[in-house]
C-alpha cells in the first residue's frame, strides 16, 4: 500500500546525485541534480503531479501516462516520471490539455475497476481513489463490457475474473482490483531481488502472476511484502488491514529480529498494531524489510505469553502464579541466601542480545554492582565472541568497519560462512542489487547458498570448503596475494606495522599454505582459491561479509584474524565499499557486547583489570568492583555441575535450546539452586527455573538497539506492556530488592549513564536520537556525528596488526563411526530458537527442522526425501526428517535449530573456540540412519517439559 504517513512523502522517482540543473516548473525556479525526473523535480518544488505507476522506491517506466506534462519547445505530453530535467526547461504540470488527457486515462483505468470503495480494504488509503479525485473524474462514459472485476457477466461466469489468492498467511492478492501498474513486479525485482512476480499476457490480457501463474505460496515469493507496500490499490493488501481497517498514526521503531536492524513505522489504531511498514528514512534498510520484520509480530499477542510472575520451590513442582512483589521477594531472598553461603561468585547473569542496550547495561550492572561479581555473559558468547576478540587484536575494536550503505560501492563481495538471503535478508537484497549492477561475488561456504542463484548476476565464485577448514582456505588466499605480489604496499606501510606484515608474508608464503596444499584439506580446487584471491585483491573495492560460519569453530577467532589480515594487506579498510563486516545474528548482539555483557570487559570493551576503567564505574555506582574476570556461560555451567555456581538470572535467552550439548546445559541448570528466567514465554530453559518473570516485547518499551553497523536506533513503546513492566523495570525491581536503590524512571536516564561512563557513547543521548533518527558509534567529541566508517585515518589501536593464522584441525573430525559432518544454520522464516517466529504464521514456511543431505549420502543409507532419520553424534542423538538436496556437498549434512522438538543441540558437542569458548556449532561428526520416530531423549524431554510447564490453579 502507499505511504500513509508523512514524512515518507512519495517523491515519485528515486533520487539522483548529478551536477545541479536549474529549470522552471509552473513558474517556480528549482535546481535539482542532473538525472532527476521532472516528476521528482516538481515534487521537490512542492508540486505533486498525478501518478499511478511511479513511486520513489522504483525506477520509472512511464506506463500509466497519468503524469504527463507539457514542456515548452517539446512536442506532445511526455511522462514526467521518465523525462529527465534539462537546463532551462520550462514545465507546465496543469493545462487544459493535460487535464483532459488525465481524465481520459483515469476513465479507462476505472472502467476496469470495481466501484466498491466504501467496503474496500484500501478505502482511505488508495492512490487510485486519490488520483480519481486529483484529476476531477466525475463520470465514466464506458458502459458494461469485458472486464476483470465482475464475477459474473450478464448470463454466465466472467472468464476474465479470478478469485482472490489468499495462500499467503499475511497478505491477499485480489486480481479484480489490479490496474497492472507493475509496481509489485518491479518491487520484487528491484527492491527484493527475488523475481517471483511477472506480467502474464499482453494488452487487455495482462495480469500480475506469481511464478508461472501459481498461488503466491507455491512460487519463489519470500513474502518480504515489498509488493504489498508498493501496490497503490487494494490488490495486494495486508490481511491485518483487511481485518482491522486503516491505521491512524505511526511510530518509528526498530525491528527486534536480526542484526540488520531495520527501521519500521509501527502503524497503529488505538493501541492495536495494524501493520509494520519499513521506513524509507531507515538508514539500515532504506524502506525494505523481510517476512519476519514486516509480518511476524503476532507473537506479541500470542496466547502462550506469560503475563503474571510465577515461582516454585523446586523444579519438580508446578508453577504458582504470584504477585510481582512476591516473585521479586522470593528471587531476592534466594539470591541473598546463596550469596551469604557461597559468596558473590556463586551468582551470575546472562544478558540478552534481544533486549535493549539500556536493559543489557542494567543486567550487567546488577551482576557487577549489586551481586558483586563479574559473572555476566551474553548469547554473543555463542555467536560473535570471536569477532570481538579477533578484531580487537588486529584493528583495536570489536566492530564492523562499515555502514550498510557501503554495499552500494562494493566491486567484489566476499561472503564467508553466512547465508544472507536467509539470515540477513534485507542486507542480502541490497547486496543482490549491487551484484546485478555488476559487482562480483565470492562465496566461501560449505553450502551452495541462494545468493549464488541471484538472477542477472552472472557467475559467482563458490569455494565449497569442508567444514572446519576456514583458516586453511583464508591463509591460502593470503598465500596467493603475497606470493603473487598483489598486496597494497602503500596502505600497509602507511597504516600497519611493516615488520609484522613481513613476518606474516613469510608465514603465508610457506608451501604448506599454498592453494594446492590446502586443496587436500579443504576440498576446494586450488584454481578456485587462486581465482578468488586475485579477484578480491584486484577489485577497486573489496568487502568481506561474514557470519557464524566463521566464528562458531574451534578456530573462530583465528579465522576473524585471517579476514582482518586479508583486508589490511589489500588496503580494503577505511573508505566506502570495503571493510570487514560481521553480520550479527540477533538484533542487539553488537549492543549487548558494547554494554559490558562479557565477564572480562566493562562497557566499552575495557578490561576489568584496568583500574582506571573500574574507577569510572566505581565512582558512578558507589561500589567496589572485582578486578577479576568472571565466568563465561559454558564455564558457569561447568561450575554449576561442580557445585560452585548456584544462581543465575537469565534475561531473554533460551540457553537450553540455543547452547551446544543440551544434556550438559540441562545438567548445569538442574544443579543450580536459583534459576530466574525473564522471558516472554515459558521457554525451554524455564523447565529448570524457580522464578519466572514475564518479559515485554519490543513494542512495549523504550530503548535502543545497536545493529551490525554500530547504528544506535531507537526502540519506541507503541503499546503498554501486557505484563505490566518493561524489562528494564523488572531488572530494577530485582536490584532494589537486593538493596541497590536504583531510581531510573526512563531508559533515557540509563543512556545518559552509559554516555557518561563509556567514551564511544559520550555524545549519545535520546534528544539527539530524536533529532537525527540514529547514530553510529563512536559518537563523541572526536566524532560528533558518529562514525559510518571506522579506521579512516588510522586504526583504533594505532597500527593495524598482522597475526599469523596457522590452521589447526578441530578435534571434531569424521571417522568410521561418525562419517558425516553436521553444520547448522537458520532459514528465512524462522529466527534463532523460534520462540517468536514459531508463534506466528511463519510456520507455514518452516514447520519443523529438517536434515539436508546430499543424494549420494542419502542413497547409500537408503534414505528418501521426507524419511524420518536418526542423527547421532558422540554427544547425543535426535530424529528429524530428511530433505535430499544438492545444496550440501557429499559428506556434509545441515539442519536448523528453530524447533525445540528437534533439539539439534543434543547432537552438537562442547568443542569451542580456543580464545573465547564460542561453541563449535558448525562442525559435528555425525552418522545418519533410518529411524522410526523420536529418540529416547526427545521422548523423555517432551515428558519433562510438559511436567515443568504445569501451572497450579490460583488458590482463590
Amino acid at each position, binding site marked *: 500500500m502507499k505511504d500513509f504517513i508523512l514524512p515518507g512523502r512519495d517523491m515519485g522517482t528515486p533520487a539522483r546525485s548529478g551536477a545541479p540543473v536549474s529549470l522552471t516548473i509552473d513558474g517556480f525556479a528549482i535546481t535539482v541534480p542532473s538525472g532527476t525526473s521532472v516528476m521528482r523535480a516538481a515534487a521537490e518544488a512542492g508540486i505533486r503531479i498525478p501518478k499511478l505507476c511511479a513511486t520513489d522506491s522504483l525506477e520509472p517506466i512511464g506506463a500509466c501516462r497519468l503524469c504527463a506534462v507539457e514542456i515548452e519547445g517539446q512536442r506532445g505530453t511526455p511522462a514526467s516520471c521518465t523525462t529527465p530535467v534539462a537546463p532551462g526547461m520550462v514545465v507546465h504540470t496543469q493545462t487544459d490539455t493535460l487535464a483532459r488527457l488525465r481524465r481520459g486515462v483515469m476513465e479507462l483505468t476505472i472502467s476496469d475497476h470495481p466501484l466498491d470503495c466504501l467496503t474496500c480494504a484500501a478505502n482511505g488509503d488508495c492512490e487510485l481513489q486519490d488520483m480519481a479525485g486529483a484529476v476531477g473524474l466525475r463520470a465514466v462514459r464506458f458502459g458494461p463490457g469485458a472486464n476483470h472485476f465482475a464475477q459474473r457477466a450478464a448470463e454466465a461466469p466472467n472468464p476474465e475474473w479470478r478469485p482472490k489468492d489468499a495462500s499467503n498467511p499475511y497478505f491477499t492478492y485480489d486480481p479484480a482490483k489490479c490496474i497492472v501498474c507493475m509496481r509489485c513486479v518491479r518491487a520484487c525485482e528491484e527492491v527484493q531481488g527475488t523475481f517471483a512476480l511477472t506480467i502474464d499476457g499482453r494488452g487487455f490480457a495482462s495480469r500480475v502472476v506469481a511464478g508461472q501463474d501459481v498461488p503466491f505460496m507455491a512460487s519463489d515469493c519470500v513474502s518480504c511484502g515489498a509488493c504489498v507496500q508498493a501496490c497503490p490499490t487494494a490488490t495486494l493488501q495486508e490481511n491485518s488491514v483487511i481485518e482491522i481497517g486503516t491505521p491512524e498514526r505511526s511510530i518509528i521503531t526498530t525491528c527486534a529480529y536480526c542484526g540488520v536492524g531495520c527501521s519500521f513505522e509501527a502503524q497503529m489504531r488505538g493501541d492495536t498494531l495494524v501493520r509494520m511498514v519499513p521506513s524509507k528514512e531507515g538508514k539500515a534498510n532504506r524502506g525494505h524489510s523481510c517476512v519476519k520484520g514486516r509480518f511476524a509480530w503476532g507473537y506479541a499477542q500470542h496466547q502462550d505469553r506469560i503475563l503474571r510472575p510465577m515461582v516454585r520451590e523446586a523444579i519438580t513442582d508446578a508453577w504458582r502464579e504470584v504477585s510481582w512483589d512476591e516473585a521479586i521477594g522470593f528471587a531476592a531472598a534466594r539470591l541473598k541466601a546463596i550469596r551469604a553461603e557461597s*559468596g558473590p*561468585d556463586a551468582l551470575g547473569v546472562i544478558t540478552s542480545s534481544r533486549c535493549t542496550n539500556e536493559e543489557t547495561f542494567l543486567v550487567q550492572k546488577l551482576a557487577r554492582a549489586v551481586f558483586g561479581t563479574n559473572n555476566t555473559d551474553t548469547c554473543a558468547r555463542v555467536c560473535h565472541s570471536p569477532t570481538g576478540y579477533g578484531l580487537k587484536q588486529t584493528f583495536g575494536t570489536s566492530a564492523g568497519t562499515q555502514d550498510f550503505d557501503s554495499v552500494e560501492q562494493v566491486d567484489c563481495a566476499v561472503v564467508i560462512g553466512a547465508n544472507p538471503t536467509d539470515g540477513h535478508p534485507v542486507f542480502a537484497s541490497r547486496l543482490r542489487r549491487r551484484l546485478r549492477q555488476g559487482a562480483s561475488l565470492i562465496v566461501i561456504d560449505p553450502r551452495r547458498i541462494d545468493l549464488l542463484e541471484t538472477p542477472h548476476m552472472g557467475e559467482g565464485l563458490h569455494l565449497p570448503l569442508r567444514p572446519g577448514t576456514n583458516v586453511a582456505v583464508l591463509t591460502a588466499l593470503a598465500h596467493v596475494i603475497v606470493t603473487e605480489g598483489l598486496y597494497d604496499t602503500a596502505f600497509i606501510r602507511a597504516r600497519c606495522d611493516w615488520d609484522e606484515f613481513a613476518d606474516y608474508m613469510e608465514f603465508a608464503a610457506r608451501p604448506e599454505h599454498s592453494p594446492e596444499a590446502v586443496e587436500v584439506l579443504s576440498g576446494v580446487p586450488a584454481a578456485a582459491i587462486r581465482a578468488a584471491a586475485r579477484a578480491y585483491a584486484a577489485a577497486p573495492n573489496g568487502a568481506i561479509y561474514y557470519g557464524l560460519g566463521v566464528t562458531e569453530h574451534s578456530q573462530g577467532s583465528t579465522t576473524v584474524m585471517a579476514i582482518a589480515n586479508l583486508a589490511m594487506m589489500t588496503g580494503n579498510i577505511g573508505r566506502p565499499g570495503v571493510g570487514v563486516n560481521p553480520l550479527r545474528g540477533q538484533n542487539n548482539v553488537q549492543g549487548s557486547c558494547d554494554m559490558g555483557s562479557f565477564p*572480562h570487559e566493562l562497557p566499552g570493551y575495557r578490561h576489568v583489570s584496568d583500574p582506571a576503567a573500574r574507577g569510572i564505574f566505581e565512582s558512578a555506582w558507589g561500589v567496589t568492583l572485582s578486578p577479576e574476570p568472571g565466568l563465561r556461560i559454558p564455564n558457569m555451567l*561447568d561450575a554449576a555441575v561442580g557445585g560452585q555456581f548456584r544462581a543465575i538470572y537469565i534475561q531473554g535467552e533460551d540457553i537450553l535450546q540455543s547452547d551446544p550439548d543440551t544434556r550438559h546445559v540441562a545438567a548445569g541448570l538442574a544443579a543450580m539452586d536459583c534459576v530466574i528466567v525473564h522471558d516472554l514465554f515459558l521457554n525451554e530453559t524455564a523447565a529448570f527455573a524457580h522464578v519466572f518473570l514475564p518479559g515485554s516485547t519490543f513494542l512495549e518499551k523504550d530503548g535502543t538497539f545497536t545493529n551490525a553497523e554500530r547504528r544506535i536506533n531507537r526502540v519506541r513503546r507503541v503499546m503498554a506492556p501486557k505484563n505490566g513492566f518493561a524489562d528494564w523495570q523488572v531488572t530494577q525491581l530485582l536490584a532494589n530488592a537486593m538493596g541497590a536503590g536504583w531510581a531510573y524512571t526512563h531508559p533515557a536516564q540509563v543512556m545518559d549513564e552509559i554516555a557518561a561512563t563509556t567514551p564511544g557513547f559520550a555524545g549519545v543521548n535520546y534528544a539527539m536520537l530524536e533529532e537525527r533518527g540514529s547514530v553510529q558509534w563512536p559518537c563523541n567529541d572526536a566524532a560528533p556525528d558518529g562514525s559510518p566508517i571506522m579506521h579512516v585515518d588510522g586504526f583504533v589501536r594505532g597500527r593495524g596488526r598482522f597475526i599469523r593464522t596457522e590452521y589447526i584441525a578441530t578435534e571434531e573430525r569424521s571417522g568410521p563411526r561418525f562419517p558425516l559432518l553436521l553444520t547448522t544454520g537458520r532459514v528465512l522464516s524462522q529466527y534463532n530458537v523460534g520462540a517468536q517466529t514459531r508463534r506466528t504464521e511463519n510456520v507455514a514456511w518452516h514447520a519443523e527442522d529438517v536434515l539436508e543431505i546430499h543424494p549420494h549420502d542419502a542413497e547409500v543409507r537408503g534414505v528418501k526425501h521426507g524419511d524420518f532419520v536418526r542423527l547421532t553424534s558422540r554427544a547425543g542423538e535426535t530424529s528429524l526428517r530428511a530433505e535430499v538436496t544438492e545444496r550440501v556437498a557429499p559428506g556434509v549434512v545441515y539442519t536448523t535449530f528453530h524447533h525445540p522438538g528437534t533439539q539439534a543441540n543434543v547432537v552438537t558437542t562442547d568443542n569451542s573456540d*580456543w*580464545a573465547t569458548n564460542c561453541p563449535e556449532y558448525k562442525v559435528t561428526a555425525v552418522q545418519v540412519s533410518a529411524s522410526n520416530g523420536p529418540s529416547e531423549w526427545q521422548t523423555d524431554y517432551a515428558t519433562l517439559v510438559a511436567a515443568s510447564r504445569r501451572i497450579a490453579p490460583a488458590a482463590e
Partner: protein
Amino acid sequence: MTDDKLARMANQIAAFFVTQPGVAAEGVASHINDNWSPPMRAALLAHIAAGGAGLAPAVIEAASRLRPPPHSAAQT
C-alpha cells in the same frame, strides 16, 4: 569444573600461541589472566602443581606467569 576440560582449553590456547612469534608461554599466560576467572586459574595451577598431566609444555611453562588467584577463590 573438571580438570580435563580446563586442560583442553589451556592446550587449545597454547596451540595458537606456539604458532606465533615470541615466547608462547607469555601469550598463554596473558590470555588466561585476561579471560579466566580466579577459580579456573586456581584449578589449572593445582593441576600443574600435581604434575600437569596432559598439558602442553607451553601451558606448564606459563604457570609461573599466571596471576595467582585471590585467596578466597583458591579454596573453591
